[in-house]
């Protein structure tokens, strides 16, 4: 039976030099504890997880570091540049992230999730700073995964600037609103995958629940990056499992080719042969 299913192993997606076994990329922020984070990451089936770069708390609150809870051989770490509001800062933070991952000999030392944000209120990405930082980071040899708005023209410019992947927001970070403008995501895909069907497009930010993830995949996106939806769910473990399943379900539905939408019915049961007419 299973041979019917996995034509090519459809769960793999290639971003730059990285081959991801899961289309779900999961963040490590906002969990109740490092232990809970560890369990949710494992349940999610993700093999790429994102982290942020912050000042060492020197006088350490509890003396524990997230890295004590991350199996560096199992996970490829994708450092982000969260907290940066200019290209210059984003480049600095990317370098620092790479330095740490090189020290840790983690496979994630050659890429970065570029976030250059507009402001703290909405955490929406700043198109100008993002584009600028993308160019610099590409020059410095980074594989850059750009968190961006769903503006298709900007997405194209980021790809032209060398981005390894463009990651349009479904809706603002942590807003839980899912994909607010499927139309724009479709146009992004047209531009980004024109004569380049395998160019990776990941929906990042705003996903709130399983159906959002499935919907993103049904649009043809290559993956989904999320954090808040799992970490802040009432039961993060269950939601991590839900997201894993939804990501696979959405991908399979996309690959399967859904039925068209019509105003109304076509009978599932044969019309003729009824005893009544």
């Amino acid at each position, binding site marked *: 039976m299973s041979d019917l299913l996995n034509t090519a192993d459809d769960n793999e997606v290639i971003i730059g030099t990285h081959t991801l076994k899961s289309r779900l990329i999961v963040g490590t922020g906002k969990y109740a504890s490092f232990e809970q984070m560890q369990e949710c990451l494992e349940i999610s089936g993700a093999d790429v997880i994102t982290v942020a770069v912050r000042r060492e708390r020197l006088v350490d609150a509890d003396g524990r570091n*997230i890295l004590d809870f991350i199996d560096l051989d199992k996970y490829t770490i994708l450092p982000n540049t969260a907290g940066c509001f200019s290209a210059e800062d984003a480049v600095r933070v990317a370098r620092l992230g790479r330095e740490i991952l090189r020290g840790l000999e983690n496979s994630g030392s050659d890429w970065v999730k570029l976030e250059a944000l507009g402001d703290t209120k909405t955490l929406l990405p700043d198109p100008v700073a993002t584009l600028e930082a993308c160019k610099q980071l590409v020059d410095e040899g980074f594989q850059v995964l750009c968190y961006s708005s769903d503006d298709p023209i900007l997405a194209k410019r980021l790809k032209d600037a060398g981005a390894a992947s463009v990651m349009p927001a479904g809706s603002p970070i942590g807003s839980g609103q899912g994909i607010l403008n499927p139309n724009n995501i479709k146009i992004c895909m047209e531009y980004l995958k024109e004569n380049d069907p395998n160019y990776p497009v990941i929906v990042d930010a705003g996903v709130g629940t399983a159906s959002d993830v499935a919907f993103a995949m049904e649009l043809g996106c290559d993956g989904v990056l999320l954090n808040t939806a799992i970490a802040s769910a009432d039961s993060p473990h269950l939601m991590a499992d839900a997201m894993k399943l939804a990501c696979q379900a959405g991908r399979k539905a996309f690959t399967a080719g859904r039925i068209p939408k019509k105003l109304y019915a076509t009978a599932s049961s044969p019309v003729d042969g009824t005893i009544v007419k």
Partner: protein
Amino acid sequence: MSVRYNCSMLSIKLNGESREIPDAWTLAELLKDLQINNRYCAVECNKQLVPREQHSNHVLKADDEIEVVTLVGGG
């Protein structure tokens, strides 16, 4: 970090806060003093990354702005 050195000191900025350290300390000595797990950190001096290999021969100067960062949970 209690000050207990009997040589001339110089002042630097560490993670945004000013701090007195013995003159001619290298980055490596600073980090050791801070008991920081070197493997989990990266260091910047005046907005320039100082690769791990150069920590031991990077001599700190007055008013250097040092950033010692690590990885934390993030989206």
